[in-house]
């Protein structure tokens, strides 16, 4: 609306005691549960300068683990993004029998414990006893206890994140713009690329960031599927656990800090860019 005028700020009544009490409860809750523990990780990491981080990055096995985690996360995010956008279009724009079942199934990875996901994947793709694994292994593709299995487990746990971001935006968008593009001569691919994708791009970006954060941090499913072989299939989260169990506290904090900071950085960057782009 061109004539949208910001209404004069109305004078609100002063917040009462209940408002203050609620604010204190919420702040305390967040500080005790999130901010304080996370900041302690950072403080412990830098308790004696950059020493622990430097030491961590000097260990080639740890570096390998971080590389593996990042590679796996990127592959999983790419797969989940393409699949997620396609699946969202299918769910919102098309009618087919079993649609509600599919929609419910897509939420399964969020509700099922990752460790169950890991075990399930092993049952299917396990090299010796799996349902499908031996066949694949004969073809030269090892899934479980190898990077493909780690990717599969990561894809599984982060599966719904892009879809759950994109679906409501697509529903809100409606079909008028797409129909208008069709009537102006655009085919399906052109319509998607020129009209639909720009309209949902922020939902996709947000879904990607959430998936990336989730993929970097995945532990349970990966632990079951990867085999945790040092220097081969050990990922960054497994490094944290290993160091923690071996009483290498500074190393565990440093690895945990690096992991957390990547995820936090992603979310911060997006939340800085997003409102500016959408402001009109």
């Amino acid at each position: 609306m061109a004539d949208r005028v910001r209404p004069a700020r109305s004078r609100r009544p002063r917040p009462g005691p209940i408002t203050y009490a609620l604010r204190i409860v919420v702040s305390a809750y967040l500080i005790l549960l999130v901010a304080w523990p996370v900041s302690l990780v950072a403080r412990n990491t830098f308790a004696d300068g950059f020493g622990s981080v430097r030491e961590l990055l000097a260990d080639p096995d740890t570096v390998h683990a971080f590389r593996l985690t990042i590679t796996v996360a990127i592959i999983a995010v790419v797969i989940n993004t393409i699949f997620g956008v396609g699946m969202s279009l299918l769910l919102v724009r098309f009618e087919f029998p079993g649609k509600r079942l599919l929609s419910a199934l897509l939420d399964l990875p969020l509700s099922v414990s990752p460790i169950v996901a890991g075990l399930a994947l092993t049952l299917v793709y396990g090299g010796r006893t799996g349902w499908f694994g031996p066949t694949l292994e004969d073809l030269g593709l090892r899934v479980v206890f190898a990077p493909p299995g780690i990717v599969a487990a990561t894809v599984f746990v982060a599966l719904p994140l892009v879809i759950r971001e994109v679906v409501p935006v697509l529903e809100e968008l409606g079909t008028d713009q797409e129909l208008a593009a069709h009537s102006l001569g655009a085919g399906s691919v052109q319509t998607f690329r020129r009209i639909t994708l720009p309209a949902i791009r922020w939902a996709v970006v947000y879904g990607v960031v959430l998936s990336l954060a989730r993929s970097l941090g995945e532990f349970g499913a990966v632990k079951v599927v990867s085999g945790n072989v040092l220097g081969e299939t050990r990922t960054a989260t497994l490094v944290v656990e290993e160091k923690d169990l071996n009483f290498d506290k500074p190393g565990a904090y440093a690895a945990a800090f690096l992991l957390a900071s990547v995820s936090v950085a992603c979310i911060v960057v997006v939340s800085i860019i997003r409102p500016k782009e959408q402001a009109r």
Partner: protein
Amino acid sequence: MSIEVANVSKRFGDFVALDDVSVSIPSGQLTALLGPSGGGKSTLLRIIAGLEHPDDGRISIEGRDATLLRPQRRNVGFVFQHYAAFKHLSVYRNVAFGLEIRKRPKDEIRERVQHLLALVHLEQFADRLPSQLSGGQRQRMALARALAVEPSVLLLDEPFGALDAKVRKELREWLRRLHDEVHVTTVFVTHDQEEALEVADEIVVINEGRVEQIGSPDQLYDAPANDFVMRFLGPVTQLGSRLVRPHDLELRAGEPYGAMPATVQRIVRVGFEVRVEAVTAAGQTVLATLSRTQFQALGIGVGVGSPVSLRLVDGAPSVDTGEDPAAEAVLVGT
């Protein structure tokens, strides 16, 4: 004939949206599909555009069978009620969209878009986003966008339905003038009979999935095919068993020969018009509307309880409802 619709039917589940509809829409004219909400007129328009598929029947556009043609191959321009502006593109890029899809040279696109923006009076808004335009401006942009691809037919689905009354009136006058300049075969859907009567060359009245009447605004108004058309085109009242327009009734004080005697029951003055409700001897309440001048000419004696007589003026249209006036008396005039 530019658009031929032959025996088209369409159902949505149990709901019959169109029931064996056949319409011929002439080239170069402005045709209105008029009818109440849910009557099937928008469905018919969307079927012509290829945005819906008929269950039965055929569509041809400019002599070419289009029944199975996808919307992007039909060369129709479509304007939506809620504009369907491409929100992330500037006004210029919105209008250029169809030409860019057709991979026309840049210079040609620029020239054509600027010409169209001038036509819809949006030259100075080329770089704005649709969200920075008013409703009326957005709809003009949508029109320019649809016209950019030089469609063989232009289809408008309740184009002014989302606008306020004043802008609505301006835009429909403007659409009429635009059509006189551009001459593209245009079909628009509306539920507003005044809009249809004012703008269209030809009106197709659609109700409950069927065509009630096709004709020019004058034909429809002067010779309605049935009581539905008569009722839909404006206020009506019943005199005996005939459905008539309240302003076609002549009201006189006293009881002259050859007219129906009645007693004034209620007088309401609305601006320039005076509405008189009178009850006949049979107990039927009849509404007559007079101009203020006509009412004053009746003399100062006319008020509630006065004896008057009612007569349909010569040549005025009426439709026989075939209903018993005494039984209907309670309903008439409301």
